[in-house]
């Protein structure tokens, strides 16, 4: 990006303008969307709750604390499952990228498991792990592990040979090359894997809660569905969207912090 490569006064001002224009556009589009929603529901064109109904329902759910309990139990599951999955993916991915033998042994399994949608594992998980936290966390673990492991492994095998050669001619051993060249060079890939992993963990979780849970945002929607309680479904959906967005932003932010050295085009 030109803003990063030449921090001259003009480009910075232009960059700030472009950014504030984006903010304004984003805000405008948000307002237009809400107005449209209001108009459509007000005119009775669709049988859906309007923005005011949804806001007042969410106020109720906040007042009685229910929504926070749901958010907390959903986030807890995602967090545990994702940390376990990503935590296992990094060493396995590096192992596969670094040792050809490990790759040969592990890759067929990963490729096979990868094409099974994590949700399809739920029935098996429920039968074998019961209906409390374990099956849900396991499914999330699987979803985030599979997305992150591929990215990490791709990162390792695509490290530019010139960097490895440059380190070797400076006297680096294999261990040093791994720690000081391969690891930093593949961090961008690993973080992209985390981002995808977290996204699929979140998607999987909500679906898992729809099927079997006693709390959580997915569970709340499923309950509301039984009573045709559309405002609650809306509140839950919007909350899921906002939380997903916030988590994604956090990963993107971390990514840009950790990979400032990258040339971006």
């Amino acid at each position: 990006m030109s803003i990063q490569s030449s921090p001259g006064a003009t480009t910075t001002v232009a960059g700030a303008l472009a950014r504030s224009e984006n903010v304004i556009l984003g805000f405008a589009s948000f307002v237009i969307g809400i107005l449209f929603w209001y108009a459509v529901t007000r005119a009775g064109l669709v049988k859906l709750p309007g923005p005011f109904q949804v806001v007042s329902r969410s106020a109720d759910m906040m007042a009685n604390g229910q929504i926070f309990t749901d958010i907390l139990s959903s986030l807890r599951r995602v967090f545990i499952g994702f940390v376990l999955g990503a935590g296992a993916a990094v060493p396995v991915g590096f192992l596969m990228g670094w040792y050809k033998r490990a790759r040969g042994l592990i890759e067929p399994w990963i490729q096979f498991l990868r094409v099974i949608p994590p949700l399809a594992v739920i029935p098996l998980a429920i039968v074998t792990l019961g209906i409390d936290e374990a099956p849900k966390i396991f499914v999330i673990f699987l979803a985030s592990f599979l997305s992150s492991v591929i990215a990490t492994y791709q990162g390792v095998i695509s490290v530019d040979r010139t960097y490895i050669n440059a380190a070797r001619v400076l006297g680096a051993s294999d261990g040093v090359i791994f720690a000081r060249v391969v690891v930093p060079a593949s961090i961008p890939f690993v973080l992209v894997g985390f981002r995808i992993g977290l996204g699929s963990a979140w998607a999987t979780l909500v679906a898992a809660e729809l099927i079997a849970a006693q709390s959580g945002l997915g569970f709340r929607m499923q309950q509301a569905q039984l009573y045709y309680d559309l405002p609650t479904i809306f509140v839950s959906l919007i909350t899921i969207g906002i939380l997903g967005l916030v988590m994604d932003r956090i990963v993107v932010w971390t990514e840009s912090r950790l990979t400032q050295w990258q040339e971006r085009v």
Partner: protein
Amino acid sequence: MAASVKIRFNDATRCFGAFVALEKLNLEVMDSEFVTIVGPSGCGKSTAMNMAAGLLMPSSGSVTIDGEAVSGPGPERGVIFQQYALFPWLTVRKNVEFGLRLKGMKERERRERAMHYIELVGLADFADALPKTLSGGMKQRCAIARAYAVDPKVLLMDEPFGALDALTRVRMQDQLLGTWTRERKTVMFITHDVDEAVYLANRVIVMAAKPGRLQEIIEVDLPYPRNEELRLSARFTEIRNRVWHAVYTRAAPALQP
């Protein structure tokens, strides 16, 4: 000139699949000698250098350093790559310190030494900058500082000054000759610039393509230290023309004594 052979290519051949990148190269580079290699693109210059660096193994024949077959790279042979090969996640200073750290040098000494070479290549103001903020020429100078810093006995340089502007280039040439005269390193230097090849070298190695091979070796019997005046001398022009012909017409006229 010292008598012992530093680098010896012995029928060194390198193929990539069925393609012969370099065919039966026979060349001896003496200890403390400065040779430059010129030749058309794709004639195997980088291939030959990578074999001396220990990054490529010959398909047949051998490459020896001090009489021992090259089995891999080592810090006593500094390499400056055609593609700068700086570590983009490290600052200029950390890049230069990379090899020093591997030698187990203490932080303070390392820092001082790195700064010395960074100043030598004129990058002092950019010591804490990341490579992505540097121009091509600055990256190349950083790569040079990184290679010089570990104080290798042999310098293998692949078009190191290619990305520099004319003035910086001349400065870097004189600096390199200065370093070489003081420290008596053995230098193998690839360039596309015939002028540069003659200005720097004891001998100019001219290579030809398809298949990559040795075309001719031209002695440069000009005294060191060399300076800008020398570039204007009749003798320099004469030798340069000879190299030029060897590279581009492959029919070198006899050199007048």
